[in-house]
C-alpha cells in the first residue's frame, strides 16, 4: 500500500570543491595558499603531510552514498599535482 516510507534525513559530509577552484591551483604553490582556495581539508592522513584529501559524500534519504574525491599531493609543502573524481552537483543539504 502507499504507506509513506520512513523519513530519513540527508547526510552531507566533506568539503565542497568545484573544478573552477581546482583550476586556480598552480605548480609550486605553498600549502597555505592551496588551502586558502580549496578551504581546510576535512579529512587528512595524520601520518603523511604530503597529501590533503578533499572528500565530499552525500547520502539522500538513507540511500546509497555518492562520493567525490580529490587528493592533493605536495612535495615539501609545495603543491605538485592533484587527482580529482568530481560529481556533477554537490548540494550542501
Amino acid at each position: 500500500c502507499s504507506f509513506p516510507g520512513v523519513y530519513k534525513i540527508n547526510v552531507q559530509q566533506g568539503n565542497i570543491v568545484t573544478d573552477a577552484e581546482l583550476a586556480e591551483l598552480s605548480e609550486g604553490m605553498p600549502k597555505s595558499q592551496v588551502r586558502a582556495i580549496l578551504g581546510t581539508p576535512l579529512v587528512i592522513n595524520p601520518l603523511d603531510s604530503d597529501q590533503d584529501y578533499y572528500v565530499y559524500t552525500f547520502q539522500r534519504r538513507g540511500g546509497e552514498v555518492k562520493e567525490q574525491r580529490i587528493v592533493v599531493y605536495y612535495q615539501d609543502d609545495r603543491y605538485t599535482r592533484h587527482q580529482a573524481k568530481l560529481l556533477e552537483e554537490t548540494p550542501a543539504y
Partner: protein
Amino acid sequence: CASQQKEEEVLAEQTYYENAREAMNSGNFNEAEQNLDALETYYPFGRYAEQAQLDLIYARYQNMDLEGARAAADRFMRLNPQSEHLDYALYLRGLASYNIDLGLAARYMPIDVAARNPGEQLQAFRDFAQLLERFPDSEYAADARQRMIAVRNRMAGLELRAARYYIKREAYLAANNRARYVVENYPSTPAVEEALIIMTDTYRALDLDEAADDSLATLRKNFPNSNVFADNGNYQSEGLKRQDRSLLNVVTFGLIGGN
C-alpha cells in the same frame, strides 16, 4: 539595628581541637565541622589554626559536602602557602571534583558512566596535575596519578563512542575524524587500538587506500596480537556493517531483511 553577636562562651583553643578530633574519629563529622569553624573564628592564628583548616576539608568531604570541601581546600592553600601539607589540600580538592558529579546510582547501578559528560572530573584532572607538578613525591601522588589516567581514558572513550555512533549513522568522515582525534590526542590510552581499526575501515570506505594502509601498519606495529588479526595475521574486521534500517526488518524482529 546593630546585629547582636549571640553570646556563647568561648572555649579554650585546645578543647575545640580535641572535640573536633574526637568527633572526626568517631565519624560524627557535623560536630567536627562546628568545632573546627569555632576554632577558625576565635583562634584564626592560634597554634592549631593550620591543622584545623586542614581537618575542615576532610570533615566536609566526609559530610558529603564536596563543594564545601573544595572551598575549604582553596582557603587552606591561600592562607598557608608555605605549609608542608599543601599536597593533602590539593589532593582533597581534586578528589572532591572527581566525585562531585557521581550520584549514588552511578556507583552501584550498571550504568555506563563513561558514556556521559565528564563534568567536574576535568577539573579534578587539573588539580591532580598541579599536585604532581608541585609535590611529585607526596604520598597521595600515586593515587592522584591513577585517577588522572582513568579520566583521560574516559575522555578517549567518549570520542570512541561518538565514532561508533557516526558509523551507525553511516557518516564515515565524521567517524574517521573522531577516531583520528583519539590517535592524535590520547595516544597512550587503550582506546587507540579500536580507533586505529575505525580509521582503517573508514579510510577504506572513502577509498583513501594509502591512509588506510598507514593506519593498518600503525595498528600492526603497536597491537600485533589485536584480535582483529586472524591467526595467520591478516586483517579481517567486519568493516562497517550497515545496520538494516528498513521498517520491515524492525517489525519482523529482523526475520525479513529489507533493502
